[in-house]
């Protein structure tokens, strides 16, 4: 199982088609693939110019690996991939990609939601929203 975990903290974007191909090379036993993409969304009350994501790269990567290991222990999964970007991003740019794959879909859904929940508050990334009228660090809701 452990060789089917892929983690990256990167500036560059990711490519869904090629990640799905990677997954398919690694497992023929998985019928369900859940892909979560978190992307930059416009603000409700202002025009977002960009989102600046700061990261403590090495620590972020090890924290993500840890949560992937936890997920692999909790659910029967064939594949886990987490890629999180940092740097300056515009509206609709991708921020995070989480792929979980399992024989049956329930495991993939649950593991995906679990990983996202953890990413929100336990991995050292910080987001600053720079908009027309305001500029502020995002707080966890």
């Amino acid at each position, binding site marked *: 199982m452990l060789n089917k975990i892929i983690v990256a903290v990167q500036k560059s974007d990711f490519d869904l088609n090629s990640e799905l191909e990677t997954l398919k090379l690694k497992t023929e036993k998985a019928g369900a693939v859940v892909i979560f993409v*978190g992307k930059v969304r416009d603000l409700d009350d202002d025009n977002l110019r960009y989102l600046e994501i*700061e990261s*403590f790269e*090495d*620590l*972020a990567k*090890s*924290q993500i690996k840890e949560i992937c290991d936890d997920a692999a222990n909790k659910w029967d999964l064939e594949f886990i991939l987490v890629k*999180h970007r940092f740097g300056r991003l515009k509206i609709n740019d991708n*921020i*995070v990609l989480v792929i979980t794959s399992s024989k049956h879909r329930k495991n993939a859904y649950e593991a995906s939601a679990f990983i*996202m929940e953890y*990413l*929100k*508050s*336990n*991995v*050292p*990334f*910080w*987001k*600053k929203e720079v908009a027309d009228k305001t500029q502020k*660090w*995002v*707080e*966890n809701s």
Partner: protein
Amino acid sequence: MGKVKLKYFSRIRETIGKTSELVEIKSTNIQDLIEELQAMGEQYSVLKGRDFAIYSAVDQNIVTDVKTSIEGATEIAFFPPMTGG
């Protein structure tokens, strides 16, 4: 204790005005270290966590207990609540 590398992120980095610095310290836990750093300038009061919770990472291990020992540590990071995902 000796020299440690202090790292600052996000709002703490902005307030202190540096991403990192090498500092000679005497303290042996996080709480004492934050107190000790106050002598370096007013901006270090951000570490007292009045406006938001302060997290720290000792040699890349996130710690929540301010009494955690930092003896032998080479790198100590301070940051506000994380907002990934």
